[in-house]
Structures are given as structure tokens and as C-alpha cells.
């Protein structure tokens, strides 16, 4: 195999890891920094410029760090090195989070380089890049650390110049003294980093009006040049000396085991070296590998041929009977008999008993797979009792501790380097593929790259749940909604972690079910059991997708039923601007609120109504449209952000097209509006894909789809062509909220409602299919 490899790849350890650690900054960023150089920032005490507030960061595993020595280094040349400790999967965190620190430090971004942190939460604090939390949880610590280093530079310079520290000021990568002294950061780098780290109370912060980068959207992503030249390093791009490639034949049914394996034909393929059995797992197995038969070869092609040549007879185990159509019927039936009440406000049975009439609808969603463009892949090397892993993972410390536990190793002997992620969407929070690579590296004694094919990815995902959402309302004689009863049925993510009781848990119920904000006196949110027969995991926006689909479709259906304008109906349901009172609304004690302190991130119906009005106005709600066209509206709060979508749909010869989407978005203070817009544009595409295409179905416990031909996505010939993102501008005091996920949920019902308005056809089952 080595003879195939050019010289530089044989040298090891890794060309790839170095490329990743030291990002190349784009020229344009350099120019931008220069252009902004003349504006001097003013700094104020915390209370004026930065009123700190509690976030859910402190409740995350291993919390949050504010020690600048962990995140910042300055060298004698004045280069500022900032540690990026969140995983980059397209959302821009690797750029935007360090950019906040650089701005508060008043550093020149063109002289900042990034180092990607390995999985080490005891050192860096929580690194779980999930839940739309990166900016939300780290904008404050990054500002604090930037201000700390700025003060340390000022104090070091003051000592050297023998002047009062208060008379020394940092000004755009320079330190300036009272008598005209002026020096680059580099001059005091060593002395500054030796200064004691100041307490928060000692710090002065930039007035937001003086931000150079924050809120501007002009800093380009750090990896832009590498991405456009092919130099960017993803999981499969790490090349180690002597590295082998493994493809694994996994059990087609979760919990299955190989009963009989014939390996001779596989081993006869040139390049195939070994066949190794991996032990399987039975749910709940967290992120443990599914097991199976690994073919280890000198290159991917040989491994693929070898795997094809395996003859395996599988014992399916208890989930071999999973069948999607029958399972849906079971969920529909269960939705008629809820067994667990989560929220019970007022007197719902009384409201229904007294109703002049009732309206009931049921909505369905099939399973989905995430299918990031980069299928799972990971590289591992086991040497001298130490394991080193390179992998595209959303939560590298979880990966590290999972691997240590799986292999019976001390976590101190396991290192997990984070490559760029070619998309994540929740799939790469569950790094079974990294554990596979770790096991094989240890077992074979050779560096191993595990490569998943697209078929592997689609068939062996941690699937977005399948669900039935049943909504009933009671109406009085004046057509006022007096009662709301929402029964949700879906196998739970919890089944991946604990013995399956069949009920959903507080994180799922907190995503658009119990936090339903409508102004209705009697509200019941309940649940019926549904046992999982495959690995259930989280998918970008998670349970918010089926809940927004149901609630927002229902609101439009109710308008139709009552002969009302859909926007007016929705606004009436949302009711007057108010902060939802958790206790008075009978919300459960474990109400999740995305892990945030409720008083800091309450449910504010005024913000919900405002983004709806914004999107509707920009889309021209109420205007006359050509035959076959319709606009649909939807609004949903998730990840403590408020997002409305107004989608214009055109149906031509039955083909559903979405020529235009307007987002109204209130995600609090925005650090990087350019990446916020790109996230929303992407959410429109992913939402349209989920609405039209994404349906994973099971027969005999086996996934029926396998690649893009039967699990298609929105493409360049039919995508939301003009996505406009209208951001509600908020000051720093309106806390930064989630961005990566909340754009997705409103898109699906906006499209569904628009199809109804275009054609008169009401669709309730996801996926809708590309045509009607």
C-alpha cells in the first residue's frame, strides 16, 4: 500500500491535522480589518456596555470557561491565536465565536489564527455543538475573555512605560500610552500573558456601537479559501502512514447479529487484508456501534469489493418485525388513548363537554435520516497504549469518553481531534463511526479509516422519530376556541439511552408541545406510548418539526373551517402581547425551555406575533396571485428564537415549486448576520426537502431507502429560489438566541399551507411527495 502513497503522505503524522489547526485567513478579511482601523473604540464598565445574564451554559456538562489563558495566546509578532472549541459543520461557529473574542480584545482579525481544540471539556468547558447553543452560550464568555486580555495588555504596557494603567488603552491591535507611546500587541505579548487574569468587575467592555466585527457580517468564514481550493480537511481526508480503510457490513436490523459468515471470497480480493467481527449492541446502547463484519483493506475500493463479497446470514433479533405502515396504524390508535398528561391548564374535559362544536385533525411524519453530504468517517491510530482519533464529530469529548469506555481505556490515553464536519444536523453527535475506527485500530494494530457509504448512512442512522400529532379544539357558540387538546405519539430519543418506557421526555415535550403559546383558557398536552424499533436520534430542530407542522397546519385549517383569514386567525390564537406565565399555564415542572433560565428567555407572544407580521408583510400576504400559486404562513418559537416563514408556492402540472420564502426572525442580539442569513437560507432548503422528500420507511425491520435515488433532496432545479431573511434588530440586552435549527420548523407548514391556498388540497402526511 505504501508504494501507492506519495512521499509527503508517508511522512506522517498528518498533513491534515496541521492544515486544520492553523487556518488560513482569506485576503478579504485582511482588507476589511484595515479599512476599519481608524475608528477608535470606547470602553465602558460592565453595567453600561455589558449587563451579564445567566444562561444554560452553566448547566451543561463541564460548564463554561472564562479563563483567557485557555483560549488566547499572543506571540512576539503580535499574532493572536484563538482556540475554536466548537465543531464547525457549516453554521459558522468556528469563525463567529472566536470573532467575538477578537472584537472585544480590539484585535485585528487578519492577525488572528485559529486552533481547533481537541475534545477536552475539563479544560475548555462544554463542547457539545448541538442545540443551537454556540453563540447563545459563548458570546458572554468570549467578550469577557477578550476584555480580560485587553486589560492584561494595558497593565503590562503600563508597567513597562511606568505609567498609570488607567492611562493606557488598547486601540486596534496596538497599545497606546498617555505620552504618545504606541506599540503593537506583540511588544507586550509575553508580559501580558503573565499578568494575573482580572476579575469580571475590573473589566471594561466595548460599547456595541464600537464593534468592528460583531453585528457587521463582514468577516468571512475562516476556512473559505481552503474549502474553495480543496485544502479543507474533513473526516475522511486525514491520511496517516500505513493507514488502512475499513468498510463494515452492519446488521440490517438494529440488534441483529451475524449467524454465519463466509469470508473467503472477501479475503481473495486483492488489497483486502483482514476481516474482523465487531461486537454488536442492543438498544439502549447510546452511541455504541451496531456491530457487524469489518473488511480491512489497503484502499477504499478493495474494502468495498471485499464487503460486497462477504456472505452473511443475519439473526434479526426482536426488531425484525418493524414495519412502518403497521406502526403508523398503531400510533394512530394510541393517539385516541393518551396515557400521560404533561400540561393540563383549566378544564379541558369541561370545555369539550360545553363546546358548540369541535374540530379534530391528525398529522403524520415518517422517519427521516440526516444525510450530511459527508457520510460518517473517522480515522484512528493505536500506538504504545495511546489512541488518537480524527473525526468529524459534534461533541468530541463525548466521543472521547465513549471510546475510552468502549475500549476499557483511561480517557487520558484517548485524544479526539476534530476535523471539519461535512454537515452534521445531529447525526454527528452520535459518533458510533469513531468508536468503530478506534476498535479496529486497536484490534489490527494499524491506523484505520472507517468509511461509511451513503447506503450505510441512510440505513444505519439515528433516525428522526416517526410521529402522529392529534389536535382537537373545542369552540363555543361564537366560534371562540375554548379548549385545546394535543396528543403526541412518537417513539422517544430516550430509548437510545435508557430502557424504553414508550413515553416522550421533557426535552421532546418542550419542543412545541407543552410550550404551545396560544391564548386559550383550557389546554391539555398529553402523550401515548410508542416503543422504538430502531435507533431514534435528534435531527436539526428535532420534535419542533412535527409539532410546528401540526400546530401551524391546524391553525390554517381552523381558519378555513371558520371562514377566517389565516393570518388573523393565527394572530388571534397567539393573543395579546404577553410573557407566558409558566405556573398559570400549568406547564410541567420540568419544562425544558432549551435549558435556559425562564426569566432570561421567557415565551414572549409579542415577539412571535411581530415576526409573523414581518414575514407576512414582506411576502405581500393578501395580494392576488396567479392561478396555481399560494402563500402560506407559519410561526414557531424554538431554541428560544422566534421565526416566521411566508412561503409562496407554485404548482405547475402537479409539481410543487417554492419560488419565494420570507423569514421574519427574532433571535435576539446577532453576532454574525451574514451567517444567520445563510443558516436561514439553508433551513428553507432543508425544510423543503423534509416537506417533500424525506421519508424513511421500514419493512421487516430494514430501511427501504438507500441512496439519493430513493431518498432524494431538493436540488438546484427546484429549490426556494429567493429566500429573504428579515432580522429584527435587537440590542445586546436582548439575549442572543438559537440560529442553526429554528429556521427549519416553520418552513414545512408554511409550504403545506401555501399548497392548500394554491390548490385547495390539504396535506397532512409528511413527506408530501414532490408532486400532488
Amino acid at each position, binding site marked *: 500500500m505504501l508504494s501507492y502513497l506519495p512521499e509527503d503522505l508517508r511522512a506522517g503524522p498528518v498533513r491534515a491535522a496541521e492544515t486544520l489547526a492553523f487556518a488560513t485567513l*482569506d485576503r478579504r478579511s485582511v482588507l476589511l480589518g484595515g479599512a476599519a482601523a481608524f475608528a477608535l473604540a470606547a470602553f465602558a464598565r460592565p453595567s453600561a456596555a455589558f449587563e451579564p445574564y445567566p444562561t444554560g451554559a452553566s448547566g451543561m456538562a463541564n460548564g463554561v470557561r472564562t479563563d483567557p489563558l485557555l483560549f488566547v495566546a499572543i506571540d512576539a509578532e503580535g499574532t493572536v491565536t484563538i482556540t475554536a472549541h466548537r465543531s464547525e459543520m457549516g453554521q459558522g461557529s468556528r469563525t463567529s465565536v472566536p470573532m467575538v473574542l477578537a472584537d472585544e480584545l480590539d484585535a485585528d482579525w487578519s492577525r488572528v489564527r485559529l486552533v481547533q481544540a481537541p475534545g477536552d471539556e475539563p479544560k475548555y468547558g462544554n463542547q457539545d455543538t448541538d442545540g443551537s447553543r454556540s453563540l447563545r452560550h459563548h458570546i458572554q464568555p468570549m467578550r469577557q475573555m477578550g476584555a480580560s486580555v485587553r486589560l492584561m495588555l494595558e497593565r503590562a504596557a503600563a508597567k513597562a512605560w511606568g505609567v498609570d494603567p488607567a492611562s493606557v488603552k488598547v486601540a486596534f491591535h496596538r497599545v497606546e500610552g498617555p505620552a504618545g507611546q504606541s506599540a503593537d500587541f506583540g511588544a507586550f505579548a509575553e508580559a501580558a500573558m503573565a499578568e494575573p487574569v482580572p476579575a469580571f468587575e475590573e473589566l471594561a467592555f466595548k460599547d456595541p456601537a464600537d464593534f468592528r466585527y460583531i453585528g457587521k457580517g463582514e468577516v468571512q468564514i475562516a476556512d*473559505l479559501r481552503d474549502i474553495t*481550493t*480543496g485544502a479543507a480537511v474533513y473526516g*475522511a481526508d486525514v491520511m496517516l502512514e500505513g493507514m488502512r480503510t475499513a468498510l463494515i457490513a452492519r446488521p440490517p436490523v438494529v440488534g441483529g447479529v451475524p449467524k454465519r459468515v463466509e469470508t473467503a471470497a472477501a479475503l481473495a480480493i486483492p488489497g483486502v487484508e483482514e476481516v474482523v467481527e465487531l461486537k454488536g449492541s442492543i438498544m439502549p446502547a447510546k452511541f455504541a456501534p451496531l456491530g457487524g463484519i469489518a473488511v480491512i483493506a489497503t484502499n477504499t475500493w478493495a474494502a468495498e469489493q471485499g464487503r460486497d463479497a462477504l456472505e452473511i446470514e443475519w439473526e434479526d433479533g426482536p426488531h425484525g418485525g418493524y414495519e412502518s405502515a403497521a406502526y403508523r396504524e398503531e400510533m394512530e390508535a394510541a393517539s385516541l388513548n393518551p396515557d400521560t398528561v404533561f400540561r393540563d391548564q383549566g378544564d379541558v374535559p369541561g370545555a369539550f363537554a360545553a363546546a358548540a362544536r369541535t374540530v379534530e385533525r391528525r398529522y403524520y411524519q415518517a422517519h427521516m435520516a440526516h444525510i450530511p453530504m459527508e457520510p460518517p468517517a473517522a480515522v484512528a491510530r493505536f500506538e504504545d497504549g495511546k489512541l488518537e482519533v480524527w473525526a468529524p464529530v459534534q461533541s468530541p469529548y463525548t466521543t472521547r469518553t465513549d471510546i475510552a469506555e468502549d475500549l476499557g481505556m483511561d480517557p487520558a490515553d484517548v485524544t479526539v481531534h476534530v476535523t*471539519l464536519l461535512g454537515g452534521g*444536523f445531529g447525526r454527528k453527535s452520535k459518533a458510533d463511526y469513531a468508536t468503530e475506527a478506534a476498535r479496529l485500530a486497536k484490534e489490527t494494530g494499524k491506523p484505520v479509516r472507517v468509511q461509511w457509504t451513503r447506503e450505510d448512512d441512510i440505513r444505519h442512522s439515528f433516525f428522526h422519530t416517526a410521529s402522529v400529532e392529534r389536535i382537537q379544539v373545542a369552540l363555543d357558540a361564537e366560534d371562540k376556541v375554548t379548549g385545546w387538546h394535543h396528543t403526541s405519539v412518537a417513539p422517544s430519543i430516550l430509548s437510545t439511552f435508557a430502557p424504553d418506557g414508550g413515553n416522550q421526555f421533557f426535552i421532546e415535550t418542550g419542543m412545541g408541545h407543552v410550550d404551545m403559546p396560544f391564548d386559550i383558557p383550557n389546554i391539555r398536552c398529553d402523550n401515548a406510548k410508542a416503543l422504538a424499533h430502531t435507533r431514534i436520534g435528534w435531527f436539526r430542530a428535532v420534535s419542533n418539526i412535527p409539532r410546528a407542522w401540526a400546530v401551524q397546519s391546524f391553525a390554517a385549517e381552523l381558519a378555513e373551517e371558520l371562514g377566517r383569514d389565516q393570518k388573523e386567525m393565527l394572530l388571534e390564537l397567539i393573543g395579546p402581547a404577553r410573557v407566558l406565565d409558566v405556573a398559570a399555564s400549568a406547564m410541567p415542572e420540568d419544562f425544558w425551555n432549551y435549558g435556559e433560565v425562564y426569566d432570561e428567555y421567557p415565551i414572549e407572544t409579542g415577539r412571535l406575533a411581530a415576526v409573523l407580521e414581518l414575514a407576512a408583510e414582506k411576502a405581500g400576504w393578501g395580494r392576488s396571485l396567479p392561478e396555481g400559486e399560494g402563500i402560506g404562513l407559519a410561526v414557531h418559537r424554538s431554541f428560544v428564537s422566534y421565526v416566521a416563514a411566508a412561503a409562496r408556492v407554485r404548482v405547475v402540472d402537479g409539481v410543487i415549486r417554492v419560488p419565494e420564502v420570507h423569514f421574519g426572525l427574532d433571535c435576539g442580539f446577532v453576532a454574525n448576520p451574514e451567517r444567520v442569513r445563510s443558516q436561514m*437560507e439553508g433551513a428553507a432548503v432543508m425544510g423543503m426537502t423534509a416537506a417533500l422528500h424525506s421519508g424513511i420507511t421500514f419493512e421487516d425491520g430494514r430501511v427501504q431507502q438507500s441512496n439519493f435515488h430513493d431518498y432524494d433532496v431538493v436540488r438546484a*432545479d427546484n429549490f*426556494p429560489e429567493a429566500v429573504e431573511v428579515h432580522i429584527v434588530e435587537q440590542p445586546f440586552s436582548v439575549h442572543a438566541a438559537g440560529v442553526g435549527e429554528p429556521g427549519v420548523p416553520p418552513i414545512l407548514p408554511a409550504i403545506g399551507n401555501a399548497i392548500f391556498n394554491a390548490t385547495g388540497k390539504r396535506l397532512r402526511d409528511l413527506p408530501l411527495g414532490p408532486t400532488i
Partner: protein
Amino acid sequence: MSITFTLNGAAQTLDAPAEMPLLWAVRDLAGLTGTKYGCGAGLCGACTVHVDGEAVRSCLATLGEVEGRSVTTIEGLDPEGEHPVQQAWREFNVPQCGFCQAGQIMQAAALISAKPDITDDEILAGMEGNVCRCGCYQRIVAAVRHAATGI
């Protein structure tokens, strides 16, 4: 067997079966990882390279098929990484995760080279085979248009 072809302007000889997909030959044997695996079935375009200037899915093309021909990958599209399509990609901040972008750029470069006066409909049709799961299509189309027409 030994197969010789031109890779990014230089002669390359690889000792491998003729039926090995070009994708794996380029990645595993030649060590150029800019070309990505996305589906292995010609359905997503992540592995797009140029063979004698034409966009080809390298997961379907075989090493034997390119013998004596000229293969260009993203690494060789422009010696300085300043092809008009690459420049347009940066100007429009196209990428999110970036994984599909090498394939998108190679597809776009071949597309506009074959048809400099390309229309919007031709861009949409020409880029249809390249999937972007992050959903950068709006910017991809704008960047292709810009690279082709300066608009």
C-alpha cells in the same frame, strides 16, 4: 496493472486495477483529498472532476477509462486557486459546511467554460446533479451567474 494519465498537469502512474473508480484512485492512491465521496452512484456530484475539460463523476469513471487522458481535480483547477468560479464562490460567501463545494465548483467551471453566455435556466439545469445538503443553492446559482457573466 500500471495506468498512466495526466493529473493536474503532471504525468501520474498508478499501479491499480483498471476498474478502480477514479475517485478512489485520486484520493487513496494519488493522495488528493479535495475530491469528495458523497454517494458512489453518480447521484450527488460531490466527486466531480474534469476529464479532458469535461465534468465527470469520478465515482463512476474508472481509472482505466482515463488512461492517457487529462484529469483535473479541485487542487489543479487553477494554480493559485483563483479561477473565476473560485473567486465568485468567495465573493458570494457560498459555502456552509463546504463538503460538496469542490464538486460544485468543478461542475460550474466546466459548465461556463462550455457556455460562456449561459442563461439562468441553463445554470439551474446544469447544476441540478450537484447536491448541497446545507442548502447553498441560492448563492451557488448567483456565483455561477457572476463567474460566467460578471453580473
